[in-house]
């Protein structure tokens, strides 16, 4: 019997959630809406409250304030066993005194399914995660990757309304991680089940998730698709956390007809005349948005540009990364590497250009 794929996917909504452990305010007014069928990531540095939020949705943590809704139904008052929210634990939490089969059958037994239905459904779940034939083993007789699959099978076999995965790949080695995350994505799309995936690895979130909530310090910083977050980070934290960003301190000064950004310690960035300049915030741009032009090239009015010298150079394979000195700061620049290119030497004077569309002014 295949796992039914007919069950309708469910939307998750988190409303105004606050949670403290004593004086430690761990979640601060968290609001999220996760559309049905999404593979959604909680991404943030260690200790920012991802696990706490996930456990709150599963019913293991109680909020001081706020609600969790599944398809509009408030599940806040329900204990964990009545929520029908499947969770895969970071440590897998496989029961060592039960075989793989018994582990997977547990949830069905608790739901009072007749025996003759349990067997086939367990077999189907094990097949789905590629563990057919290992049902008789104890968890201690499995590899890390196999244990991870058992934990997944144990959860999806009960066809929960939503699936919560707490750093499900962190116990796997680098190669297996890439393999399993792709499988996970395929399985999730096949089942169509709304899934939250906790990780502190941005590459993991970027490659498999539909949308990401970036968290820091118990607050949701921004929600969006990986590309949205990368191209339009909402604040300095998101810009710095996703990929590499140049975050430059300076002061706006008027420069004859136009405006320039003056860097402490000498150096300035000439801003394009048509730029929308906010009243506060810092200048942010990605290393790959910058191109180097010969120092004598006349500036174009639609780009920002600045003069600088090369402080260091790293060869990264497909790209070359230059570190440029600008006042008391350093600006990173990535240029594609093609063999035969002429390299700028350390100390060389260069002129750098950033298109206006790549300039961001961000706060916080």
């Amino acid at each position, binding site marked *: 019997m295949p796992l039914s794929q007919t069950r309708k996917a469910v939307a998750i909504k988190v*409303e*105004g959630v606050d949670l403290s452990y004593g004086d430690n305010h761990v979640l601060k007014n968290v609001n999220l809406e996760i559309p049905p069928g999404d593979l959604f990531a909680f991404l943030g540095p260690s200790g920012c409250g991802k696990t706490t939020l996930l456990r709150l949705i599963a019913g293991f943590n109680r909020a001081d304030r706020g609600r969790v809704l599944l398809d509009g139904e408030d599940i806040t008052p329900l*204990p964990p*066993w009545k929520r*029908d929210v499947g969770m895969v634990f970071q440590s897998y939490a496989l029961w060592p*005194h039960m075989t793989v089969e018994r582990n997977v059958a*547990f*949830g069905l037994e608790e*739901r009072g399914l007749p025996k003759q239905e349990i067997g086939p459904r367990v077999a189907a779940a094990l097949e789905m995660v590629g563990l057919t034939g290992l049902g008789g083993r104890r968890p201690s007789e499995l590899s890390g990757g196999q244990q991870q699959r058992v934990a997944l099978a144990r*959860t999806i076999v009960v066809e929960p309304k939503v699936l919560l995965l707490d750093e499900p790949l962190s116990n796997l080695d680098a190669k297996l991680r890439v393999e399993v995350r792709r499988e996970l994505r395929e399985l999730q799309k096949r089942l169509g089940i709304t899934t939250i995936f906790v990780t502190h690895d941005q590459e993991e979130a970027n490659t498999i998730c539909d949308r990401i909530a970036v968290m820091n310090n118990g607050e949701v910083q921004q929600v969006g698709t990986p590309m949205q977050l990368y191209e339009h980070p909402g604040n300095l934290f998101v810009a710095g956390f996703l990929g590499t960003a140049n975050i430059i301190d300076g002061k706006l000064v008027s420069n004859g007809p136009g405006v320039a950004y003056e860097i402490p310690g000498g150096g300035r960035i000439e801003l394009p005349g048509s730029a929308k300049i906010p009243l506060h915030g810092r200048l942010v741009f990605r290393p790959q948005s910058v191109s180097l032009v010969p120092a004598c090239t006349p500036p174009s009015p639609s780009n920002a540009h600045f003069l600088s010298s090369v402080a260091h150079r790293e060869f990264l394979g497909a790209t070359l990364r230059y570190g440029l000195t600008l006042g008391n700061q350093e600006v990173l620049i990535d240029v594609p590497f093609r063999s035969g290119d002429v390299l700028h030497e350390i100390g060389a004077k260069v002129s750098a250009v950033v298109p206006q569309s790549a300039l961001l002014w961000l706060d916080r």
Partner: protein
Amino acid sequence: MPLPLTLPRIRHAAATPGQYALALAIAAFLVLTLVLPVVTVVVVAFKDTTGGFTLVNFADFFGNELFQRSFVNSVWVAVLTVALATVLAMPLAYFTARFEFRGSALIQTLGILPLIMPPFVGAVAMQLLLGRNGTVNLLLQDWFGFTIPFMEGLNGVIFVEAVHYFPFILINVTASLRNIDRSMEEAAQNLGASGFRLFRRIVFPLSMPGYVAGAVLVFVKVFDDLATPLLLNVKDMLAPQAYLRVTSIGVADPIGYVICVVLMLISVASLGLSYAATAGKDYATVQRGGGGLTRRRMSRNEAIGAYAIVGLILALVLAPHAALLLLSFATVWSFSPLPDAYTLAHYTRVFSDSAGYIWNTLLYASIAAGIDVLIGGAIAYLVLRTRLPMRHWLDAAAMAALAVPGVVLGIGYLRAFYAVQLPGGQSLATFWVMIAIALAVRRLPYALRAADAALRQISVSLEEAAENLGATKPRAVRRIVIPLMTGGIVAGFVTSFATAAVELSATLMLVQSNSDAPLAYGIYVFMQSPAGRGAGAALGVLAVLLVGVCTYLSNRVAENGNGSSHH
């Protein structure tokens, strides 16, 4: 997105009603069976004849020459026992920690062997072997014309107790030596310390917490022991005096209670001292890894010396066992190095006349161990897995039983429950169930620690995973927690059972008729008269077998349990 800051702040109960009910039931049990009797004892000690507060009873106690002597004797015996036990234990601990010594397995056995024979069982047998007219002294007299007073007066108590209790020191010291990180010793060597200096500056301080814990345990056990001095006919010590006052003068005599308070104060003070000395100073386990000291091979002479010492101690430990066995098969054994002839009559007699003792023992010890496992497991769960307010008080209350000597608990039961009438007109204090309950209370700390240790090994997420898949809390406990704790629970049960089966101090106070008496009491009664000694020894052999088998089983289970519940 709206900011629903208007949502009310939610107040959550810290625990479920079921957990509250369980905690209350346990609290009620502990109050009735432990707190109330102990408080009764203390209150009576401070009451005058009209019921007012007084210190007169204490003045009487400290003004009386017999009690002064008893007090001094008790302290003397406990201190010298610790000293002698240290002398026995230290070389053994050092050999196993420092050398690659083949005799280490033997030493491990030595660490358990004495404990399976209650000291009072060995006492009479030791007298036959080492007493004034015992085997050794008769031979010494014949061959060399002198005797050694091993068993004269207090010496006998010290000797018997030290041989019985030295494993507590051995086990604790060995454990701390094993936990010493090898790198600590190597760091000291690297900085130039070696030989005895290294031992004094590094090894000795690091093993100190283990030694103090073991030594205090021995001190308290010996200080509180009632049966050994009684059987060796030493009456001027504190525990025997408490017993004699209450049984000969009556439950109304306040001096018995004063002695109880003194016993308890010394227990509490010693355990408090041990706690203060070891808390936060468990240096040995601060560093992960352990591995113990670097072991080296013994030279030939060292090995000979070591084997000689181990052999001597082994002989000492086996002496009471051997003597007991001989006595149980002896027709007559007095004023001669060995029994005159051998017989099975004592065993026949024990099985035909005294089967009741054995049956009672099995019954009481099973009930006690059952209660311990249930309550110990429940307290461990409430403390570790719930957020019940005041849950640590349950743990503390149960552990407090450690500081209550058996005599004190027994006297407390007599006093607190004497006036309570059962439907049949019998007093609650003399109802046999109270013996089982007293045993349960006394063994609860051990069962609790076993359950606590077992539960700590089970990751909380295992339970949460079950709840996540639809199991309610009670079902998650039943299907996940209890099966995984089985090893710890069984080990706790067997330990409680084995030690309850041979406990005598509280029992001695509570047994009112022979038909309610357990094995230990039977041995005590038989051993009182020379004619009964053979049968007493036969019962003693049975007791040793019972405890020995249980100890073996509990070790086996604990080892297996570790394997399967490891996550």
